[in-house]
């Protein structure tokens, strides 16, 4: 808590805190240094460890080995299967159709990876450690939300783009390439750049949506909590008076953050599914209108976009 309050700039609590950085030199904004380890990378590693060590083991527990018992999940596996089945039947199958089982493992991984990273970001590791061991002289940022880093979300979005393009070419073939020029051929000089930009925009939006949502909630919490310190400076009574609603509000916002953690992971995985489906299920159509009519899920994408921006 004290660390949370240790800076007047709420962004400090949200951004990455490198533990070990290699200076590459040069004055480029992005490539002048190389972060070897940071609080967010550590949290991402922790999320990966939880997934690999715990979720893999707990996720495939079944009641028995043979017969019907082998089809019945037990304990945590119920949650895993609930999510998996939902994504497979409700999200992937309506859009991916016959290709569902080919891509579903990727979609599941995207969801669980982002969801775990988001949840890890809600854990106040450093605050808890300082509460137990006392404030060290040189505090180290332990916790952090890996998905509140645009580099992380952009990398994940690029993975989705790679899935779109590679599988679009592999499965759609020339139809996928033709899909970049949905109109008559003489319109190609106009349409192809627009379509390419469109793909880029989808990926960009995907990365920014997750990044901004994860960062915004944490900034809000930091700002809220910083009020208590300022209030205590004005007097004990004011401090208590402000702290009570702030703490209650923080608890409420933490619950909201829990929901957002799941929602944003879902949206990322959902849009990944849609984008892959749009690349894979390209058909030759003379009229672009028909093409859109084939994809009722596009409307859902727009709704989700609105929902995401509303946060």
């Amino acid at each position, binding site marked *: 808590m004290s660390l949370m309050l*240790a*800076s007047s700039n709420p962004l400090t609590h949200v951004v990455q805190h490198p533990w070990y950085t290699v200076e590459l030199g040069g004055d480029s904004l992005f490539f002048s240094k190389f972060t070897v380890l940071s609080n967010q990378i550590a949290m991402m590693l922790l999320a990966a460890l939880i997934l690999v060590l715990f979720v893999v083991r707990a996720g*495939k527990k079944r009641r028995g080995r043979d017969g019907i018992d082998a089809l019945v999940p037990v304990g945590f596996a119920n949650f895993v299967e609930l999510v998996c089945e939902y994504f497979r039947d409700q999200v992937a199958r309506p859009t991916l159709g016959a290709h569902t089982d080919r891509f579903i493992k990727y979609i599941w991984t995207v969801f669980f990876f982002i969801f775990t990273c988001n949840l890890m970001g809600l854990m106040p590791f450093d605050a808890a450690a300082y509460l137990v061991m006392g404030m060290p002289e040189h505090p180290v940022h332990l916790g952090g939300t890996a998905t509140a880093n*645009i580099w992380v979300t952009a990398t994940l979005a690029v993975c989705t783009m790679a899935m779109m393009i590679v599988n679009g070419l592999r499965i759609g073939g020339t139809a996928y390439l033709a899909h970049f020029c949905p109109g008559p051929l003489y319109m190609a000089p106009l349409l192809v750049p627009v379509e390419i930009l469109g793909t880029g925009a989808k990926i960009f939006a995907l990365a920014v949506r997750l990044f901004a949502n994860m960062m915004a909630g944490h900034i809000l919490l930091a700002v809220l909590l910083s009020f208590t310190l300022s209030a205590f400076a004005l007097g004990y009574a004011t401090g208590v008076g402000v702290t009570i609603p702030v703490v209650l509000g923080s608890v409420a916002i933490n619950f909201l953050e829990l929901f957002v953690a799941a929602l944003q992971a879902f949206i990322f995985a959902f849009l990944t599914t849609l984008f892959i489906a749009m690349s894979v299920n390209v058909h030759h159509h003379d009229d672009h209108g028909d093409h859109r009519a084939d994809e009722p899920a596009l409307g859902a994408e727009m709704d989700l976009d609105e929902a995401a921006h509303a946060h």
Partner: protein
Amino acid sequence: MKLTKQILVTGSVVVGLYAAPALAAAEEHGAANPFAGDLGNAIWTLVIFGIVLLVLGKFLWKPVLNGLQSREEFIAKSLRDADAANKKAEQVLAEYQAQLDKARADATAIVEEGRRDAEAVKRTIQDEARQEAEAMITRAKREIGVARDTALNELYTVGAKLATDVAGKIISRELKPADHERLIQESIAELGRTDVSTN
């Protein structure tokens, strides 16, 4: 506005006093940039996500997907089996219904036939009984007739013999056996005529 400024100033002072080392550490890394990060993050993300994808794909998603698929097949098969069983049951029911209807029709036919046979038998028995009764009556009449004729003959013979004997005694004249026989025969003939005329 004044309050905000006040809050900011006092906040900064308290924060500075309270956690100077932390602030120093934060300032060490420069101003907080919301887009903080570099290629290191991207490579780490790629590596970690790749490993998670591989490990989960092999050790978790494979069994989960197999489970989902086999459950799907199991449910589909169960539904198909149930449907087939239902159709079979309906078919069997229809067969049994048909058999039942046929049996009922047969039973009705049998009862009807039985009734007809019984009627016929009744009629036959009545006819036979009637014929037999008529035959018995006829025979009885015939036997009565024969017995009457025999009795009458006997009566005539005895009557004639008696009359002859009486007449012979009366006239005390011995008749020769030939005369005797002739007289008897005449008497019978006369009696016969008398009987016919009197009957």
